[in-house]
């Protein structure tokens, strides 16, 4: 998680020039490294989104007559101890990553982060003080440990809430599909994940709120929500894109790590589950190929997010480097 937070810190302190969306994108696409990173991320996320269509098998479809199979035309990456298709498991795992990071970015960064940042920056004073102190507090606790304990303790509760909901609404299979875990994990990550975005938005709003066009809008009698949404928010899109990119990588890693430790996603495929099942001294010795599949994908994804984050920071604050 540290890389993303670091880069967010760099963004906060570096003087960011407002660059028009078009030039921003064009400058970004002129960098081959950034393009490669975008392609890798889109491939992995695309595979995850299209998992029901493109995965050759189900992620938990076992075939005990065909365990530890080598790569073949039927199983491109071979099969594991229970004869499950490794490629399919990778694709379904990518889907989990897409869902969790999507939910967390929308819930944590966009809804919580942007609105708290806007409020904090625009209504300076007591509100700002409270929000920023909470942000400070969240920054100064060992986040991962708290997310760990939240997931470990609340899982049973959330499960039963979902089962009750099933009984009331009559929708079946919700609790079994892994939805409660996914929900809990996204909420826990969102609670700790809004700080970077809120600080960034706040610092930008603080510098923009005395700008002439904002003063003009206020003089004409525009309401605070209107000024925030129509005049300030559009100025922040580039920054939001950068922060979201960094957050996506951090959230993906958090999901994989927590799932690996057994408190994240369950009843669903995940890179964390795959690494947990394929790592360990005996497996590494006997079946290293199994281990390479999920680890290399996770490493590629993290590398791409970092490279893209670097490129975005460069494009937005050209003085650095």
């Amino acid at each position, binding site marked *: 998680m540290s890389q993303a937070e670091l880069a967010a810190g760099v963004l906060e302190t570096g003087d960011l020039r407002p660059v028009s969306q078009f030039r921003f994108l064009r400058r970004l696409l002129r960098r081959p490294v950034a393009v490669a990173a975008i392609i890798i991320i889109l491939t992995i996320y695309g595979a995850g989104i299209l998992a029901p269509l493109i995965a050759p098998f189900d992620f938990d479809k076992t075939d005990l007559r065909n365990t530890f199979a080598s790569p073949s035309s039927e199983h491109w990456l071979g099969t594991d101890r229970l004869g499950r298709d490794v490629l399919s498991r990778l694709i379904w795992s990518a889907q989990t990553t897409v869902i969790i990071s999507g939910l967390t970015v929308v819930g944590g960064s966009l809804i919580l982060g942007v609105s708290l940042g806007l409020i904090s920056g625009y209504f300076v004073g007591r509100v700002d003080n409270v929000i920023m102190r909470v942000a400070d507090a969240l920054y100064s*606790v060992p986040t991962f440990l*708290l997310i760990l304990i939240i997931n470990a303790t609340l899982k*049973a509760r959330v499960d039963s809430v979902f089962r009750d909901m099933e009984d009331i609404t009559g929708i079946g299979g919700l609790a079994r599909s892994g939805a409660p875990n996914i929900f809990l994990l996204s909420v826990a990550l969102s609670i700790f994940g809004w700080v970077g975005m809120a600080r960034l938005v706040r610092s930008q709003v603080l510098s923009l709120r005395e700008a002439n066009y904002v003063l003009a809008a206020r003089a004409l009698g525009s309401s605070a929500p209107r000024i925030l949404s129509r005049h300030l928010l559009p100025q922040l899109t580039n920054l939001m894109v950068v922060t979201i990119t960094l957050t996506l990588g951090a959230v993906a890693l958090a999901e994989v790590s927590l799932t690996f430790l057994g408190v994240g996603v369950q009843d669903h495929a995940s890179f964390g589950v795959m690494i947990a099942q394929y790592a360990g001294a005996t497996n590494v010795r006997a079946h290293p190929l199994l281990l390479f599949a999920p680890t290399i994908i996770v490493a590629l994804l993290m590398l791409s997010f970092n490279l893209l984050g670097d490129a975005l920071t460069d494009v937005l604050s050209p003085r650095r480097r």
Partner: protein
Amino acid sequence: MQGLASYVLRRLLLVPLILFIVSVVTFALGRYAPSDYVEIQAGPSARPETIERIREERGLNDPIHEQYVTYISNFLRGDFGTSVRYRGVDVEDVIFPRLWITLQYNIAVLLLTFVIGIPVGTWAALRRGTWMDPLSIGTFVLFASVPVLVSVPLLQWLFAVQLGWLPTGGWESREILGVEIGLLSAEAILPVMALTLLGVAGLARYMRAQVLDVLDQDYVRTARAKGLNEYPIVTRHVVRNALLPIATLMGFELAALITGSIILETLLGIPGIGLYAYESIGSRDYDSIMAIVLIGAVVFQLAMLVVDVAYVFIDPRIRLSAEASA
């Protein structure tokens, strides 16, 4: 100096406040969340009367705020409750030997990270524009991107399985001068290497950017203009100024180490506090989990406090602005 004193004081007051919040949250989660807290404590074959008796004995029928006060005053007196997994053993007897193991290799990693990362990052910055530049940036970003969860199994495969140089995991302590030390055994090499690689790459990457920033400053140009040699410019002006923002990095570094230790110990079977956390969560050993989170928070807070206060002393600008604002 009055401003500085009040800054340090305010910073100090924040520590118990944050620890209080963390303890309330962990306590509430530990008591309210698991519906079967006592059933786990009592074991699967316990009769209802037994469970009720345990409830009464442990004060679980008391109002929740009284329970919290009892828990915290016990905690402060060094009574962390009893472990479920290690049946009947007190948590404090398990947690401290395990914390010591984790601290040993983490301190080694922190030292190595700074000793290697700072010169490497500076060196990379001074080679800007040469053919080495893309190579060093690429190496840094690659190693900084690969999480422990990925690097440890791969290093294990390479060094333990393919080359056979290192053991695949575990921890071997020997008594040296009356202290159990495991850092000097072959088992410690893999964990230290994995965490150091990650730390050095991240630090060097950040250090490079900082040094490049400082090299652009007027005072460096002045130093060059007055004919100073390159070496004193770098050591006396550039590195010292570039180091200042690095202190803020310590917080991230420590947070990453906590996360890294849990995963690393689980992967390698190192009996430190990280593996203890993993086992306790698996066996829903709530007294242990709560103690681990609280101890983790205390260690984290103390480290952050040291960094913050040291930072104020190192950087006169912060000291002055703290005095001005007071």
